[in-house]
């Protein structure tokens, strides 16, 4: 009967139910979007590092993230290769530069140059053309998301980068950058010429360590030979990039802060409606008490009311959140929903409703049971 009572109390006042659900919806959708953006941002920030085939990254000292790195000398690659335990060492070039649109105007891009035969970093999720297409003169591969931004329509279109002409030979899907700066994939040498980098410079050396080799020992050996460079493991570079973009810039803090704010507002709204519902039904709770119900029984009614609101709010909120996720899928800032995030949201919704129930429970605990009588 506790469930029946909770259910009827909830549906008795439709307006209040609507307000409660709006409160929960607001909260869930806001938290889903904020945390979804966070997950999306995280994915974008680490996607290159995850995709690149390197256990150890050799880079200029003080590099903060994948996109912004000072050049190092190309010969560092050979130093790495000569280190015992190293299986391969592949050069990689990245840098910001200007893309001049065929339609006029220009936009900032990140050029990524690597030779795919080396097995370093090649574009993935290719929906048109192929990596081998990069073999042709002026060839570059870009992501579909940024076609408009780059002022082009698709494969075959040309533009100018630096003093060179480029031609789009392939399209990827879903390779987006956190900075909303389009990635331009090309070969190592073409990348150098697009960004005016001397032939004896590169940006990274991606080093693969032999299975079974002690990665820390290999790193120490390389470091000893290259005191001016930094050698990071994949995980370290990932963390460093995330710290830079999400925390040093405040972006991640803003996203998480927004989520916390959503939770607080939702909790306040649900607590408010649950409290006023309990107040309206106070004489019924007093009657329950007179009938000899334990206080646990009454708490159960209120908690079930909170729990039912949570379930309803979660289902509706997730429907809206998933719609937003779907709509954002092809934008520059995709919102990501993972099973983990969905479970976290469910937990947060229940926690929010349970906390909201506290003030209502406090109210019933102070009932004067003698109010059942007319005086």
């Amino acid at each position: 009967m506790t469930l029946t009572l909770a259910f009827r109390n909830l549906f008795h006042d439709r307006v209040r139910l609507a307000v409660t659900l709006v409160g929960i919806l607001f909260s869930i959708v806001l938290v889903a979007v904020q945390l979804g953006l966070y997950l999306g941002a995280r994915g974008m920030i680490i996607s290159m590092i995850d995709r690149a085939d390197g256990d150890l990254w050799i880079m200029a000292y003080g590099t903060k993230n994948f996109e912004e790195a000072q050049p190092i000398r190309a010969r560092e690659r050979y130093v790495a290769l000569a280190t015992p335990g190293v299986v391969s060492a592949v050069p990689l070039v990245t840098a910001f530069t200007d893309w001049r649109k065929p339609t006029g105007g220009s936009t900032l891009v990140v050029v990524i140059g690597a030779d795919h035969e080396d097995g370093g970093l090649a574009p993935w999720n290719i929906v048109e053309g192929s990596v081998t297409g990069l073999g042709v003169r002026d060839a570059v591969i870009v992501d579909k998301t940024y076609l408009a931004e780059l002022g082009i329509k698709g494969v075959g279109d040309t533009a100018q980068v630096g003093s060179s002409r480029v031609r789009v030979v392939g399209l990827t899907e879903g390779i987006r950058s956190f900075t909303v700066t389009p990635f331009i994939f090309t070969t190592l040498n073409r990348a150098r010429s697009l960004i005016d980098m001397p032939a004896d410079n590169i940006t990274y050396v991606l080093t693969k360590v032999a299975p079974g080799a002690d990665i820390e020992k290999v790193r120490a050996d390389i470091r000893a030979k290259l005191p001016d460079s930094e050698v990071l493991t994949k995980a370290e570079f990932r963390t460093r990039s995330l710290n830079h973009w999400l925390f040093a810039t405040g972006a991640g803090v803003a996203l998480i802060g927004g989520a916390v704010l959503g939770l607080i507002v939702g909790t306040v709204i649900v607590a408010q409606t649950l409290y006023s519902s309990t107040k309206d039904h106070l004489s019924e709770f007093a009657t329950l008490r007179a009938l000899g119900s334990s206080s646990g029984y009454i708490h159960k009614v209120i908690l079930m009311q909170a729990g039912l609101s949570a379930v309803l709010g979660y289902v509706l909120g997730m429907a809206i959140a998933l719609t937003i996720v779907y709509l954002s899928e092809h934008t520059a800032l995709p919102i990501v929903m993972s099973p983990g995030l969905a479970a976290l949201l469910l937990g947060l919704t229940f926690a929010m409703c349970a906390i909201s129930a506290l003030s209502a429970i406090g109210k019933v605990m102070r009932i004067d049971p003698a109010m059942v009588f007319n005086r």
Partner: protein
Amino acid sequence: MTAIATVQETPATAAPAGTSVVLEATDIVKELGHGAGKVRALKGVSLALNTGELTLLMGPSGSGKTTLLSILGCILSPTSGTLTVAGKPTTGLTPEALASLRRRHVGFIFQSYNLFPTLTAEENVRLALDVRGDRGSDAIVHAQRALHHVGLRHKLKSYPANLSGGEQQRVAVARSLVGAPSVILADEPTAALDSENGLAVMALLSQIAKDKSRAVLAVTHDPRTVPFADRILRIEDGLIVGEERRTEGVETVHELARNRKRKANA
């Protein structure tokens, strides 16, 4: 010798043959309010309720009837004095223990019915079983039987808003009855009802009181209820000032009905 002396000293506890005392209150004092607004609503009330009897508690407004009923039903605790319900002393019990005592031994009927507007008649009755942990199909059968008993066989699925005042009060009677309590306490059960419905509810209470395992106490200041009483306690200004048992001189329920019929025919 000793036994007779005891009876004489506390006549209120003398149960007639074949009945027993299920509730006993001694020297109940109750102060209400705080500071300047403090009121001594009960000034030393002693009484006993016997099974098989309908006792009426009558007195003017403000004399302390509701306060006494709340104390007898373990809803309020007395400022001083002792109360024993179904053989269990209540002094010093926690609110939870008192609630447990209420759900096992006490049934309440209120002036304004206090039904749950969002529950059907049957669900309202079933609630009294549910709070005791009696759930499942047995509870449904018992709730339906209690409603049959009060003549509401055809209103099981009706919501209070669709029942007349008399029907609502009968649902409340069924609810008080369904857990087979030893004591049923009713506060002004007919005050909100017209005369016909009021009499029907009183008839029901007097019939319920015929059960030899149960005592019924109804607070009232409605003279129409007098003919149903086995016993009347008079309260004034927080003190019991008189006790009467129905004697041959008083009109019985049946005589009253006959007189009403006669009047109607005339």
